[in-house]
């Protein structure tokens, strides 16, 4: 009897370790495969040139248009999203009462928005675009992606702001600060690392998302010069290059995927670094 229990314990522990190895292994496998397959096509011209004529048939050029387009798009969307998220989260945590039905409804809505797939954001963005009389452009893409980023950013910010001790807010109030002053000078400062991480997570999502911009941002070989021009994005560039029947161009899709993965890795490293750096302002 005792032996059977010990064996069950051993079997399940082995299964758990195996599962964890599978999870870790899949990340390594993904990054390994992408890096390995992209090496033959990686070149400097890839990231410093825009597509020349016949690029998608295997001629000269690079994906600079998509890299810049994606950076513009994700930066604009993230900025817009911060302008919405930060006031929302501050309101939820400072102005509304803990038991407020309005606050729980908003939090619930954010949870729901978080779960909505990006293709639905794409379709919704398309409807907004038509409604505003816009064409597929950088601006339409920015609006759509900012909606996509809003729940990701707000939820991440809300999680850290909820942890701010009441005593800290009370101390600020008792010194005569208004709630706005407490919000901006105490709470934002206290949660700065968390806020920055939230911003970076949302930025990463924005730069990597394809399904929401396929409808709204369009695609072009040029670098967008204004908000009303279409913009190429890196994920879509990967998708289109992979869709061509030419092996050389498909190779470039792998290389572009490596560039995108690198950007995501850099963002995640940056957020770790920022957390370390700004934690010193925090009152523990």
């Amino acid at each position, binding site marked *: 009897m005792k032996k059977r229990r010990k064996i069950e314990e051993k079997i399940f522990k082995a299964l758990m370790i195996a599962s964890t190895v599978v999870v870790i292994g899949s*990340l390594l496998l993904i990054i390994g495969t992408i890096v390995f397959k992209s090496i033959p096509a990686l070149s400097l011209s890839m990231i410093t040139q825009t597509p020349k004529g016949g690029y998608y048939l295997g001629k000269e050029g690079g994906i600079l248009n998509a890299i810049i387009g994606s950076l513009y798009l994700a930066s604009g969307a993230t900025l817009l999203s911060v302008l*919405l998220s930060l006031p929302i989260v501050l309101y939820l945590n400072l102005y509304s009462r803990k038991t407020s039905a309005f606050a729980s409804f908003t939090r619930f809505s954010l949870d729901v928005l978080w779960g909505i797939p990006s293709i639905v954001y794409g379709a919704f963005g398309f409807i907004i675009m038509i409604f505003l009389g816009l064409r597929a452009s950088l601006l339409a893409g920015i609006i759509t992606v900012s909606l996509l980023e809003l729940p990701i950013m707000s939820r991440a910010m809300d999680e850290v702001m909820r942890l701010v001790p009441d005593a800290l807010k009370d101390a600020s109030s008792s010194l005569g600060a208004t709630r706005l002053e407490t919000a901006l000078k105490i709470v934002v400062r206290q949660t700065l690392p968390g806020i920055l991480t939230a911003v970076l997570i949302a930025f990463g999502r924005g730069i990597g998302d394809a399904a929401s911009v396929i409808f709204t941002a369009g695609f072009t070989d040029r670098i967008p010069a204004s908000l009303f021009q279409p913009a190429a994005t890196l994920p879509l560039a*990967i998708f289109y290059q992979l869709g061509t029947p030419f092996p050389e161009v498909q190779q470039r899709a792998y290389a572009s995927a490596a560039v995108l993965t690198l950007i995501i890795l850099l963002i995640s490293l940056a957020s770790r670094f920022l957390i370390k750096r700004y934690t010193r302002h925090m009152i523990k």
Partner: protein
Amino acid sequence: MKKRIWPKKIRLAKDAIARRGMFFLTTLPGIFVFLMLFGLFQKSRAIFALKSFSALLFGSSWHPLQGEFGLFPFLMGTLWVTLVAMILAVPISLLTAVYLSEYAPKFVREFTKPIVDLLAGIPSVVYGVWGVLLIVPFVGNKLAPLFGVYSSGYCVLSGGVVLAIMIFPTIIHVSLEVFASVSYELRETSLSLGATKWETVKYVVLRKGRQGLVAAVVLGLSRAFGETMAVLMVVGNVAKIPNSVFDSAYPLPALIANNYGEMMSIPLYDSALMLAALVLLLVVLFFNVLARFFLIRAERRAR
């Protein structure tokens, strides 16, 4: 340098203005949800005037040029891929979460958490490229011959495998939170009564966290249901109901993404695609509301 302090009146006025402005912004998330439902419904209404709801959802012929818009093959495609992904992802994610929360030494936990975060951060196109590079040839050249069937590799199984990896982080994250909410006293009581570690997990931790785990699985499910690009790239996109995991499928999100170009040139096409988006939204909304309901119940139980 002495900082200037504004008169009380102005400070209070600023606070009042900020409160109103922030209140207005805070109403937005709720409004967005309704606006999405309303907008997609409005855009798909044109097609309801001509077809019945059941003909659209359960009709299996998709010929936009002839005005036939049966979404059934696409719904089935989504269901097949999601099911395969869940079968693969649920046991692996739950076992990993149990290991990380109950068994793993600290350094393993510290090492694995960023990896799970990174898995969540990798863009779906990159998953798609990886699927095309590795999973598709593997399924087409190795796995399918092993079972004695022909497959191009662009099939339900490939989609399921890629999707499973994509939803690991969702299930693992929520499960870890659930396990963390189970009190240590309970675990210690069980251990002190002579239960093994696994028995403690099985009879105490898993039982106590049951509802939270259901929520974790449902959230993963809803993630899988709406995932577009990665699946689109490896699943073959043939508008037929699949018969086996080695058949191609054409999931609903892929349908929307693939046909954006033509949708404005064929009458009712855009409206059919918006209906597809609406169906997707409603299903995902349902899953999310369900998951939140379970999570709230779980929170109450844990207290």
